[in-house]
């Protein structure tokens, strides 16, 4: 163990002199974290062809609710995920959706309450609230979704006018109720009667308003008039579905996991290069001749990389705390970081045997890093990726790393939920180490 420690210490000293490597390990992630933090905090745009995957839980099952869903689909901005089990109760579907969002498998859900169809699209009647639960790391898309809901509601209003027959009974009923009511004094009756009479004029002007809203919805801005009563659901608190206090302390909670990803990938590339440099500068020869085993040489290298990853994470977490980040579960965060570090050691081992020269290894390592970071969500939010990239992102160990970190910081994962991403990270680490060691042990010269 002393030998392994000596090897690791030496490597850390070597890397300390590598200014470029250090920048990529420590400077770059801080930069990315802060940058992403600002982006998450202020992003409010979207492009035409963005596809947001959401689930709609329809507790109303009316013609109106179906029209609303069709309008969402026709907006072209969302894809609706069919329920996994259509026969499941609305409650079960809702729970499933919240869980999936929490685990990062779904962007959002929209809940249409029972009775939605009776009042939807009628401006003066406030119906039960539409539920909206969005992945908190997607603040940008959340604003967009609200816009899309408004747009769909606006469409329903237009539908009501296109089909006056469906409006007339409601107006008639309202007027009758007012006139027949004993509680309402005659003066009020007169005013309300007059109001109902001018409704036609008012409604005529609504068409114009709808047109305005369509525009507003598309540019992501919030309409100035409340078309729909949207109630946000906190998906991070499954046990208290109505608890609206978000677990997200600051934009940094969201931006740091992706930023840390850059730092740990920097570690992988930097230590992979020290491994080939060991060969190119001949010191590997001395190590092989020395009274230490090959396993100790490799373990020393791995330990150095592991320590560096932990250090990067410690620095980033400390910085996050300073900026207002409040991890949900520090113990889980430790577990996530340790798993991530182990995964990075495996990636480093594999990278170190890709080529024989420093140039080859560092080139290939950074190429792989950029790909892993891209598919892991380190560059553009997953939601903005085309579908095939989203599928591929499952194969980037970094997307699991980000999920594990988020799970501990704000997704409120249970231990069981932490296990999947952590196990994948550890498996990747073990596979990478095994492959790297196997290739290295064949390269004796």
């Amino acid at each position: 163990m002393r030998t392994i420690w000596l090897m690791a210490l030496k490597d850390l000293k070597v890397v300390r002199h590598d200014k470029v490597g250090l920048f990529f390990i420590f400077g770059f992630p801080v930069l990315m974290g802060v940058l992403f933090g600002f982006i998450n905090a202020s992003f409010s745009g979207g492009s035409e062809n963005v596809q947001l995957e959401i689930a709609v839980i329809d507790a109303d099952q009316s013609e109106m609710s179906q029209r609303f869903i069709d309008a969402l689909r026709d907006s072209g901005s969302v894809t609706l995920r069919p329920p996994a089990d259509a026969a499941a109760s609305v409650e079960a579907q809702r729970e499933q959706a919240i869980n999936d969002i929490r685990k990062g498998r779904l962007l959002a859900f929209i809940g249409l309450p029972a009775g939605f169809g009776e009042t939807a699209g009628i401006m003066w009647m406030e119906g039960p609230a539409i539920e909206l639960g969005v992945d908190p790391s997607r603040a940008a898309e959340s604003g967009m979704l609200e816009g899309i809901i408004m747009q769909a509601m606006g469409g329903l209003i237009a539908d009501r006018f296109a089909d006056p027959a469906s409006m007339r009974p409601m107006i008639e009923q309202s007027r009758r109720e007012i006139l027949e009511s004993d509680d309402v004094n005659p003066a009020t009756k007169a005013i309300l009667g007059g109001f109902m009479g001018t409704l036609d004029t008012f409604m005529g002007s609504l068409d114009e308003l709808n047109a305005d809203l369509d525009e507003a919805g598309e540019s992501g801005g919030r309409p100035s008039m409340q078309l729909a009563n949207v109630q946000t659901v906190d998906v991070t608190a499954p046990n208290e579905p109505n608890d609206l206090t978000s677990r997200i302390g600051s934009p940094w909670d969201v931006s740091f996991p992706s930023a840390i990803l850059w730092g740990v990938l920097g570690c992988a590339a930097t230590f992979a290069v020290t491994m080939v440099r060991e060969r190119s500068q001949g010191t590997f020869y001395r190590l092989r001749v020395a009274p230490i085993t090959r396993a100790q040489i490799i373990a020393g290298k791995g330990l150095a990389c592991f320590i560096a990853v932990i250090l990067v994470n410690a620095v980033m977490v400390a910085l996050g705390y300073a900026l207002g980040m409040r991890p949900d579960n520090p113990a889980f965060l430790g577990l996530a970081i340790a798993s991530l570090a182990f995964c990075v050691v495996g990636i480093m081992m594999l990278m170190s045997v890709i080529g024989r020269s420093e140039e080859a290894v560092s080139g290939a390592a950074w190429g792989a890093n950029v790909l892993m970071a891209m598919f892991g969500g380190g560059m553009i939010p997953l939601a903005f990726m085309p579908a095939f990239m989203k599928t591929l992102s499952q194969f980037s160990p970094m997307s699991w790393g980000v999920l594990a970190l988020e799970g501990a910081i704000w997704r409120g994962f249970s231990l069981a939920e932490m296990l999947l991403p952590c196990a994948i990270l550890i498996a990747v680490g073990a596979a990478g180490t095994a492959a790297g060691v196997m290739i290295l042990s064949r390269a004796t010269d």
Partner: protein
Amino acid sequence: MIVVEGLSKSFGSLKAVDAISFEVHTGETFGLLGPNGAGKSTAISIIVGASLGDSGRVLIGGRDIRDGAAVRRLIGIAPQSLALYEVLSAERNLRFFGSLYGLAGDELASRVDWALRFAQLEDRRRDLVRTFSGGMKRRLNMACALVHGPEIILFDEPTVGVDPQSRNHIFECIEQLKADGRTIIYTTHYMEEAQRLCDRIAIMDHGRLLALDTLDGLLGEHGGAAVVTADLVRAPADVSLLPASLDGLHLRFESRQPLEDVSRLATGGVAFATLHVARPDLESVFLSLTGRSLRD
């Protein structure tokens, strides 16, 4: 101390080391002399266990080099290509390599000081290796082989690029190590170094061991006769006294006892204007063994 038996190693179709066998005795300095590409470094790296031979075996003190740490601890090697951490200081390099051999604390510190003196780098101890000149690095490369005080030391062309003064210092240090009873294998393509330092010399070419003996043994066996060339003041009265016929006043002859022959001529009244005696050396040994010059 070191037994090498039938060692072979090929790279593809090239036989870099071809069934070589030899023994190195305790306290001996053993020279491995050969031109570029002879297979010296390849043989060395198999002997120290840095790479595997295709066949044959190496015993160090009766044990196989692959047996483990105890055998490896006995060995120190200064590889031909530098093996140093460029971004660590001279001292850190020495400390790291020393600690790999189990040294620690005061013992490590005093060994590192000794090695720095050996490398004449005491005043540069805290400077990074990448700021060193080629010769300094080469000296440090040797010091790293010695820091743990090994019984057996292998120097693979240690003096390449070292200035004459430092080279002399290195020779003195090696002679000191010899006097301490260390066993040394020294590879070089400079015959002067082999002649000065080595008790026995093996001559290698194309992976094969062509001859192995003491310097005198090699010269006697393969060196041939010395060559005497002279210009005479005048032709002697009795030309039958001369071992060869005169070309004008120029005389050239080969002899196994050149000095005796010359003094016999002088007492016989031959007057020399110039005189040159070329004794056989390793160059002539190599020439006679391979038909080529060592300096090709």
